[in-house]
């Protein structure tokens, strides 16, 4: 027993160093006023009072919520439809399609985002700009949507692959039985596919919520939260607060709110998993 614990020490130290120490530090700095150079001053809940009373914070949270709702639906529906259709494709062709769909996901985010910015959303020559005669990225009301479209392009293929892999695990006789009993394709999806891939589906939805509250790269590369604050999200606001305005204390407090938002779906997921565990 004691030997087992000794064996765990290196791994525990590593985890402590790379996870626990920075987390605790962040929580500590959240209660301080610190510009990153001088000694931090303990100010209690002052950072949180300022954050929660700032309308910008709530606007940013709302942007995160909109982003989350978009990613909980559009790419998921797209991926589910494509994954279901892949079930009706011969095995070899299925492999080819799955590979093609996965390509955008393995490209670097910076390259994808810059490419979309230049080819589709360029304010003058972008293909989408020309088709709709509208500068999506440059207009406050559509900037977030445009970035979400770029992210979706990179993301949905991966999601389709994950759903397709889950669907591959479904015993084909379930479909045959439903077919014999007169179920149509929608009923087969509703009564066989969806319930059977539910654990994967829930996991991906929960992770979507987590990732949506942590989203940073797509927004920072394209608009840096602009125009104005139109596409500002929690992560870009946190980054700017800490590294642009050198308010590391407030930035840490913002980071902890992100952790709180991301923790809720994780808690729900863990609860579902423990409940589901009883049934499986």
């Amino acid at each position, binding site marked *: 027993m004691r030997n087992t614990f000794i064996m765990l020490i290196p791994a525990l130290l590593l985890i402590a160093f790379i996870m626990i120490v920075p987390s605790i530090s962040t929580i500590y700095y959240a209660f301080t006023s610190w510009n990153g150079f001088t000694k931090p001053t303990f100010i209690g809940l002052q950072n949180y009072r300022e954050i929660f009373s700032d309308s910008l914070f709530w606007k940013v949270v709302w942007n995160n919520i909109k982003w989350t709702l978009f990613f909980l639906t559009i790419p998921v529906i797209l991926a589910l439809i494509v994954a279901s259709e892949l079930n009706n494709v011969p095995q070899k062709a299925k492999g080819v399609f799955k590979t093609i769909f996965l390509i955008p996901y393995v490209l670097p985010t910076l390259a994808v985002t810059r490419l979309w910015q230049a080819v589709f959303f360029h304010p003058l020559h972008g293909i989408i700009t020309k088709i709709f005669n509208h500068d999506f990225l440059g207009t406050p009301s559509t900037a977030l949507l445009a970035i979400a479209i770029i992210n979706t392009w990179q993301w949905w293929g991966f999601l389709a692959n994950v759903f397709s892999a889950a669907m591959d695990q479904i015993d084909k006789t379930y479909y045959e039985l439903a077919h*014999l009993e007169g179920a149509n394709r929608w009923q087969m999806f509703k009564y066989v596919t969806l319930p*059977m891939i539910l654990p994967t589906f829930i996991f991906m939805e929960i992770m979507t919520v987590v990732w949506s509250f942590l989203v940073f790269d797509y927004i920072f590369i394209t608009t840096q939260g602009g125009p104005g604050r139109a596409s500002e999200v929690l992560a870009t606001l946190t980054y700017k607060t800490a590294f642009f305005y050198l308010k590391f204390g407030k930035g840490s407090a913002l980071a902890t709110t992100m952790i709180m938002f991301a923790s809720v779906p994780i808690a729900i997921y863990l609860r579902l998993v423990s409940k589901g565990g009883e049934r499986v």
Partner: protein
Amino acid sequence: MFMGDTYMVDVHLRGVVKRFGKTIALRGIDLDINDGEFVVLLGPSGCGKTTTLRIIAGLEKPTKGKVIFGNREVTYLPPRERNISMVFQSYAVWPHMTVYDNIAFPLKIKKVPKEEIDKRVKWAAELLQISELLNRYPHQLSGGQRQRVAVARAIVVEPQVLLMDEPLSNLDALLRVKMRSEIKKLQRRIKVTTIYVTHDQVEAMTMGDRIAVMSAGKIMQVGTPWEIYNKPANVFVAGFIGSPQMNFIDVTIEEAQDGINLISSDFTIKLPQEYISLLKDYVGKTMILGIRPEHMYPIGYVPASLQKKDKIKGIVDFVEALGSDTIIHLNTGSKIIVVKTSGTYRPKIGEELEIVIDLDKIHLFDKNTEKAII
């Protein structure tokens, strides 16, 4: 509907051929199944029995041939328009639905009113003795209970034809025996035309009104269990049915003064005069003699009723004592003959034995066509 009345149809297969790419799975299946009959498709793995069932179900389309229900051709109709039900080997009971919802599902799809669904689900559950399990999920059930749910789900729609694809092969031996009789009793009660696929000859013999023995995409024989066992049409059927397997010995036919001699390399068996006319075309030729192990008796164990008999000799090579039976492997020189006798008889290995053959029960097959002559 069956909740009391009968509702059934006869099924006919006409020249059904099925190819999967270059592989020919079925080579022209002709089969007539009467309404309310329990027919078993029996054969080894890969013989085409499941493909035949899937074509009847509409899950596969035949390359050639017709499937007829009553006087309606259904060859290219989708399964839902055939009024059939199927029980799969894996049961296919949906894990995310309660037993009640599983049984109710096919009715729900057909938009049957809720009260009617409730009535029918309860009827099917009662018939299968699973009424107390209706609120449970499949993972809370044993294999046997899941099997019952699958059968209940199949009969609740009152199909004209009930198809079963090796439904008992995932159960343990004891439960299989129990379910065998229960399925048979249920089929007798609801009188649905049933087509049952299995590779287990005991299941086939105990459950089927008739058995269609299949091999390599062809039906080798259709008959009652009695016919299949006692009058096998060819070497394949003779060898496939019966345990231990029938003994096959090459013999030369020779006409003698008072009968026919079957001459093998190890022994000669003498058949009475009445066989002369049956075997006159084979005199001088080689045939395959088939004798079931249970139709040979050691001295002292010969039934008094045995009329036509002859003896062979051999040395006991191996003995399998099964309790109720003893299986003797008898070395007759160049062949091992298997004899099944009473469990009370235990010969010693190396002992010389004289074995009496019941000549009324022997089979003779044409060496070239492998068809039964006697």
